[in-house]
């Protein structure tokens, strides 16, 4: 009896792992294919995309880096995401502090507003915004585009920061107030250290979101010199199929940093994803 139970458990475990590995395969197969082909010659890819590289052609990467103008692309991407993170952090931390304590009249109305703003489609505000920005000569302007990206991630960031501020014990602020601290000091010296995991979570989520964003950045960042790394990569595809090795190497140049970044920040990333959706 004990034996069969053990056996049964073993089989269940085996099936579980087979199914999970199958799912891993589905997720990673296309990416693995890009990786192996990025080391191959164009003709080798055309002949068989499934074969492993015989000779490692690292020069694909050098060529990709220059054709894709990635040096400038990455600088633009960093600017775009960096400015977006700074705007969102500054605004959402302050707003989260105010809304967590219901410190002003209409706090719940503001929360309601942000809840609706979170589900508003980009197409509801994109077109007038584009033509207004065009009139103000802001098309191709990275900080201006950051402002739009910041506005789209603001609601979620405000909710997340509010949740983190809600977890701060009231006594902490009261004690500081008794010691004569003003609001700025309370936020900077008392609250900031406590909510710093929230600040990291928001930075990671907003950073990745703005790095990957397509609709707004492709609409507003026109002009090749303003292209982010992703937009530069997309423009390479114009010469469709002409040189797959370079295209594949370019894809890896884009995938690599994000995967590494994700591996280091996954805890915060997963926390941020979950706290928006699961009440705990």
């Amino acid at each position, binding site marked *: 009896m004990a034996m069969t139970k053990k056996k049964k458990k073993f089989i269940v475990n085996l099936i579980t792992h087979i199914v999970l590995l199958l799912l*891993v395969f589905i997720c990673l197969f296309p990416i693995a294919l890009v990786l192996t082909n990025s080391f191959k010659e164009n003709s080798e890819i055309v002949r068989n995309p499934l074969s492993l590289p015989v000779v490692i052609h690292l020069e694909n990467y050098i060529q990709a880096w220059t054709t894709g103008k990635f040096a400038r692309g990455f600088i633009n991407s960093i600017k775009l995401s960096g400015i977006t993170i700074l705007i969102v952090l500054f605004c959402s931390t302050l707003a989260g502090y105010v809304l967590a304590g219901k410190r002003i009249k209409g706090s719940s109305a503001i929360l309601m507003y942000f809840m609706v703003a979170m*589900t508003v489609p980009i197409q509801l*505000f994109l*077109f*007038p915004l584009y033509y207004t920005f065009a009139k103000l000569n802001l098309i191709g302007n990275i900080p201006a585009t950051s402002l739009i990206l910041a506005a789209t991630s*603001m609601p979620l960031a405000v909710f997340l920061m509010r949740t983190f501020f809600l977890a701060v014990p009231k006594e902490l602020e009261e004690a500081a107030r008794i010691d004569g601290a003003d609001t700025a000091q309370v936020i900077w010296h008392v609250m900031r250290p406590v909510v710093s995991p929230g600040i990291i979570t928001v930075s990671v989520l907003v950073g990745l979101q703005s790095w990957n964003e397509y609709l707004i950045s492709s609409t507003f960042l026109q002009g090749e010199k303003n292209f982010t790394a992703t937009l530069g990569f997309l423009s390479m595809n114009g010469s469709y199929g002409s040189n797959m090795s370079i295209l594949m190497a370019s894809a890896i140049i884009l995938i690599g940093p*994000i995967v590494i970044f994700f591996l280091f920040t996954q805890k915060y990333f997963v926390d941020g994803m*979950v706290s928006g*959706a699961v009440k705990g």
Partner: protein
Amino acid sequence: MKKRKINWNYLLIAPALLISISIILVPGIMTIMYSFTDWNGISPNVNFIGLKNFTELLHDNIFFRAIGNNIIWTLMFLTIPVVLGMLSAMLLLGRKKTKSIYQVSFLIPYVLAPAVNAMLWLNIIFSPVVGLVAFLRNMGLDINSPLANRSTAIFACAGVDIWHYWPYLTVIYLAALRQIPTDQVEAGKIDGCNGWKLFRYIYFPNIKSTVSLMFIMITIGSFLAFDYIKLLTGGGPAHATEVLGTYAYSFAFGSMKVGKAAAVGLFISFFGIIASIIYARISRKENVE
């Protein structure tokens, strides 16, 4: 003294509110107004044309095809990723050492940019010249790029988006499942529940609120579908993969009918607002409970 403190707090909320209002609310209201005009985006000459944009849409076959495609998109997203997410979350629930390795591997497509994911599928998988499709064709299989076929293109687009999206649900469901008190699960096991019964009577009822929240978010998201279609097919071939998002975009930046684009945009928002009202209702009910 007290009055000064209140003023401070209004100042603190101002940046977040001002940015949101100037980027989202004001242009949103402008969209509503422009949907009743024939504005082309540039000309200062804007004429009020009443409901003409909307009545024209009601006689537009492509518009209805776009709605149809959004509905296909919604149905696919409400089934395939939900089942995959639930299955993988249940399987991961029992894993201790390997859980995070699996979770991280699943999430890699999710954290990559849609532009990168789409290019990757477009070239190395779907391309009839260099991709997997081309390779299989050379082997003698009679297949073509599913993106080139009018009847399969929408499913291929949704497939790529689902490939990228489903691990998100795994993470959400797994987080919800892990909050279930272990004594409930133990009690269920003692009562003789296992496998499907355990899921049906113990796990599922406990995460029902998360599941229904995700249903609403998926529905909202499906009517906003844009990135993968724009990147993979651009709405083609012959409007076969047109959805409301891409259709509005092509009005605004292709044929310069911004008034009409606004009308389509309003239509998308209409679904979003209905769903977000339901969402607000549900989350408020839960807060009360």
